[in-house]
């Protein structure tokens, strides 16, 4: 049986269906769940970590049901939520030892030291966490999560609010964990990171998984060449044959086509004939961003602004 088996998982809040009949099988890989805000990513993770009870369906973690045997599930997993929760008034070592003791491992001090060493925090282990940077705090959270050697690791937006260097280090560690045989379930907004690190990706929109495959396969399946055009004015004509409109990203219009170069010339000509001023045309291979745009489209924020989360992010950036 796979480390994570999800069958018909559904969560309904009143009339809102946050997650709809999700079916997934994940084993010894980094699985990335991508989706816009409010698409059901965090609700999914909360159900898998026994923090929310599903309305329908079930999921099994290492063979244990999240609905019937949540205690056994909790013994197999670690969960690092979006909010960066480490005690600033404790030292790094104290933070990890505390988790080691709670997990009931035999030698919490020694194991905490090993985890801190692995996450490159050994030299700062006795400093109070209030002196740690955002990236160090996230790595400390990983050390806490790994102290009991879980089978499955759930990470909700692990790199949100971190600088580029901090993000890279976090992903390096996550990839290292997968190599050691751990199953990692991660949600993220950052397409480039998911493309680089995840073995498979599921794209969720309005609670439903709309696509799932390896990043390469998703890009090949869903997109052809990408033509990106910046132009002034409004196009009222008909797009050339074989060209499909993907969407708008900022002031850039994106199209997909089998032959990007030919499509680029044809689109540029059509735009100019329509009285538009074409400023730039570029042709490139599709990225996961394009896949996301093709499947989910550009969406208005439908969720209420979460001030608590905004404040947490600001604090993390200091």
């Amino acid at each position: 049986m796979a480390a994570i088996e999800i069958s018909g998982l559904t969560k309904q809040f009143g009339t809102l269906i946050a997650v709809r009949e999700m079916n997934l099988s994940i084993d010894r890989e980094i699985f990335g769940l991508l989706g816009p805000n409010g698409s059901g990513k965090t609700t999914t993770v909360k159900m898998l970590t026994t923090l929310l009870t599903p309305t329908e369906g079930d999921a099994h973690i290492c063979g244990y049901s999240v609905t019937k045997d949540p205690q056994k599930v909790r013994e197999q997993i670690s969960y690092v939520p979006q909010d960066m929760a480490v005690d600033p008034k404790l030292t790094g070592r104290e933070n990890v030892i505390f988790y080691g003791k709670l997990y009931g491992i035999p030698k919490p001090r020694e194991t905490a030291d090993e985890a801190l060493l692995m996450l490159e925090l050994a030299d700062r282990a006795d400093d109070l966490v209030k002196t740690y940077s955002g990236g160090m705090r996230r790595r400390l959270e990983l050390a806490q999560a790994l102290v009991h050697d879980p089978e499955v690791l759930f990470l909700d937006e692990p790199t949100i609010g971190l600088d580029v260097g901090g993000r890279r280090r976090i992903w390096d560690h996550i990839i290292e964990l997968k190599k050691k045989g751990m199953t990692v379930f991660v949600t993220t907004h950052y397409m480039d990171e998911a493309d680089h690190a995840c073995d498979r990706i599921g794209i969720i929109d309005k609670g439903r998984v709309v696509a799932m495959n390896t990043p390469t396969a998703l890009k090949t399946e869903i997109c052809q060449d990408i033509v990106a055009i910046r132009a002034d004015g409004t196009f009222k004509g008909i797009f050339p044959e074989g060209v499909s409109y993907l969407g708008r990203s900022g002031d850039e219009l994106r199209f997909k086509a089998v032959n990007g170069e030919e499509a680029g010339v044809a689109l540029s000509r059509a735009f100019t004939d329509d009285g538009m001023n074409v400023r730039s045309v570029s042709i490139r291979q599709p990225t996961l961003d394009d896949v996301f745009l093709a499947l989910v489209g550009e969406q208005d924020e439908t969720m209420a602004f979460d001030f608590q989360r905004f404040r947490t992010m600001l604090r993390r950036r200091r």
Partner: protein
Amino acid sequence: MRETLYYMERDFRRWSRGKINVISALILPAAWLIFVGLALPIRFTDNYLDFITPGILVLTMLGASLQGGALLMFDKILGFLQKFLAMPAPRETILFGKILFITCRGLIQTTIILVMAILLGAHFLDPLLLLQTYLVLFIFGVLLSSVMTTVALSLEDHDSYAAFNSMIAMPLFFTSSALMPYDQMPGWLEVLARLNPVSYAIDAIRSMQEGIFPATTIAGLLIGAVIVLSVSVYVFRRATV
């Protein structure tokens, strides 16, 4: 249940490293005793200090418990609680850890009051009386901190918790038997004071000062604590965030 001790240890470490927390916890009880115990012009007793000390002890424990519930609220809004609930440690140990920390911190504060009261002339040196006083304060602390921790788990944010806190703090304080005996109260206040759980704890200590063991009052507090704890454990086991 070792996890209870680990949760409590975490809170004690965090508390002891915030200088202002410790200073305020130590100064506040002293201020209470001096301003209320020595300054009020009272005529119904010759030794107001002996009368008021049980009231201040219980009200200090009440204050510690009301303030203590905010600890869980912050654990919740800062994301700690999500992690704790996803861990294999029994969920009620989170509750027990908070109750133990809040009650023990309250007992440290009440110890300062007791020492000061004794230095100022209150008759509290009897070891049996001290032991029984601590017992009553412990039960009262468990009862109140259990209520407040569970309320914090159920409310959405810190503003709601602060509003709830303000709503119950003043009525509990002013309708208790802390400041004056029942025979000095207006009739309507006496009715309320006799129903107030804060009065139960104060009256129990006052009875013990007179050499009477208030078995019924202590049993009442104990039954109240057990009922509240049972409800709290039920709520914590089913908690979702």
